[in-house]
């Protein structure tokens, strides 16, 4: 053959570690500093909320960014996780050691059932059917009159942790959320780089080729959908604890749309991007809302511009700047 090398072939080089890690390290370091620099209750609560949204956006990135599955019902998982915690709470099951795993299982279970149906469809049909399942969850919550219906359901205090109320302290809660976010980030980073993640990404690149290689994309997509649902439900469990309140408004389709905006703005298929996007969107919303009650007139066009111009999102932009 023409170009058989004399020595045994060597593997291509991988980029240096700092190049891959500088951005996540920076983001998490900044987040860890927040309570020490801006200790006010309001800021702490705001950033905690942003980080919870970041967990949800992170989970959406697994299916949207790595699986090319445009799910428009992701807020349902947030709501399910939140409701699981609050409903258990109303039945005097207040310990996170029980409530959080239940929330995760509920999210995973809903993802398994709806995913098994949705993933049989493609393209716009998938977008619409996930939207419909999201609406189904929303309307179910509004009709749960035993649990507050439209008005939602209150918790008298945050979940206990093995009988203690350590989560009641806002700073402690902040670091629990930050830790969960970091844990989810590392977990998902491993998953997308694993053999499983490679099949998921491959099916996005070229489904026909993957079948011809012997992979059945459906099974991998369903597994990814279940993982995403479980993680988003965990975000929901934290969200219920943040305000000690749940309501159907947690799972409106507008919120699902916001999750998509967060992922795209930050940078799809990067994991760190959706975290930046979620924090950015939450802070911008808060800032605009402080300027005017009609903040959506400004936020809406921003979303349009993101959709039209934000190819690659903030992460690509930062990498380009840093690469210079």
């Amino acid at each position, binding site marked *: 053959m023409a170009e058989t090398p004399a020595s045994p072939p060597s593997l291509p080089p991988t980029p240096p570690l700092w190049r891959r890690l500088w951005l996540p390290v920076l983001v998490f370091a900044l987040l860890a500093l927040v309570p020490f620099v801006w200790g006010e209750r309001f800021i702490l609560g705001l950033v905690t909320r942003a980080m919870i949204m970041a967990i949800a956006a992170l989970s959406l990135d697994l299916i949207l960014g790595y699986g090319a599955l445009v799910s428009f019902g992701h807020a349902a998982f947030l709501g399910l996780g939140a409701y699981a915690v609050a409903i258990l709470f109303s039945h005097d099951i207040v310990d996170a050691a029980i409530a959080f795993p239940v929330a995760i299982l509920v999210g995973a279970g809903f993802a398994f059932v709806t995913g098994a149906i949705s993933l049989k*469809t493609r393209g716009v049909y998938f977008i619409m059917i996930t939207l419909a399942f999201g609406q189904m969850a929303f309307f179910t919550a509004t009709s749960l009159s035993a649990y507050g219906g439209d008005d939602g359901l209150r918790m008298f205090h945050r979940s206990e942790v093995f009988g203690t109320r350590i989560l009641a302290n806002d700073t402690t809660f902040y670091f629990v959320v930050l830790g969960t976010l970091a844990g989810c980030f590392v977990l998902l980073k491993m998953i997308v780089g694993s053999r499983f993640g490679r099949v998921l990404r491959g099916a996005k690149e070229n489904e026909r080729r993957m079948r011809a290689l012997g992979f059945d994309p459906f099974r991998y997509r369903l597994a990814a959908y279940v993982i995403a649902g479980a993680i988003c439900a965990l975000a929901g469990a934290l969200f219920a604890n943040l305000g000690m309140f749940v309501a159907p408004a947690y799972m409106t*389709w*507008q919120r699902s749309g916001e999750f*998509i905006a967060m992922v*795209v703005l930050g940078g799809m298929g990067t994991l760190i991007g959706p975290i930046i996007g979620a924090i950015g969107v939450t802070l911008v919303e808060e800032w605009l809302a402080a300027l005017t009650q009609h903040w959506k007139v400004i936020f809406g066009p921003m*979303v349009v511009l993101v959709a*039209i111009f934000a190819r690659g999102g903030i992460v690509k932009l930062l990498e380009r700047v840093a690469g210079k």
Partner: protein
Amino acid sequence: MSSTLLIIQTLNGLQLGVLLFLIAAGLTLVFGVMDFINLAHGVQYMLGAYLAAMFVAWTGNFFIGIALALICALAFGLLLEVVVMRHLYDRDHLEQVLATFGLILFLNEGVKIVWGAAPLQVPIPDSLSGTIRIADGVLYPVWRLAIIGSGLMVALGLYLIVAKTRVGMLIRAGATNAPMVSALGVDIRRLFMIVFGFGAMLAGFAGSMAAPVFSVEPGMGDNLLILAFVVIVIGGIGSIRGAFIGALLVGLVDTLLRSFSVDLLRLAGLSPSDARTIGPAIASMSIYILMAAVLFFRPTGLFPAKG
């Protein structure tokens, strides 16, 4: 469950179905011809209602008001097409979804600034107010019958346009194979614009017809938009016939189950209190279950236009 109530709710279901059809028709054509997901289609419906409210109040004449509202809805649709939509046709569905989602946020808030957050009322014109006796002891508002009638007429007109005219032929061809139509030398951009503007006007028409029945308020199009998506997914994207059947199906199932689910569950042997708890939940989920079931057995809807 009395037969009187059944008749009235069936008519209400038809009325919802007809409104849904008017919205879904534009949506499914835009979808089918341009492969474009327009989430902002629901705000066209809302805008139609607001425009009708404004022009009816200005002119003092309902019919002139509606006519002006239609013209403005068309003009606004064309404006939207030129300013935003045409930059999105060759983008991913994801980007289309996101951009039109941003438009919804903007327009829902925009109408609050222009017309205020409080709901507006539109009076029913005198000539069409009052009720009519449609069976023994069953009275039904004339205006609602007028909605059903005019919706059915539009459906017929639309069918004739799509089935018999040259533009209709291009639309059907476009829904099946847009590059082919383009290759035949048709100005596909202009066709897109016509279809989009026309679809916007139909949604606006639905909004102005609905204005006297429902209160005119920000976000009024959002839920109908989602129902309209359910309709076109059930009917098959790009198919007018599918949209029509799907719209009636969704309108009837949703309306009837909302009023009879509790009774039905009690007939099925549930206790009254259980039935009252579960009934509304089942009713509000019913059309989504219907859609999931249709997609499970026919992943491209009942009347797929492509393939």
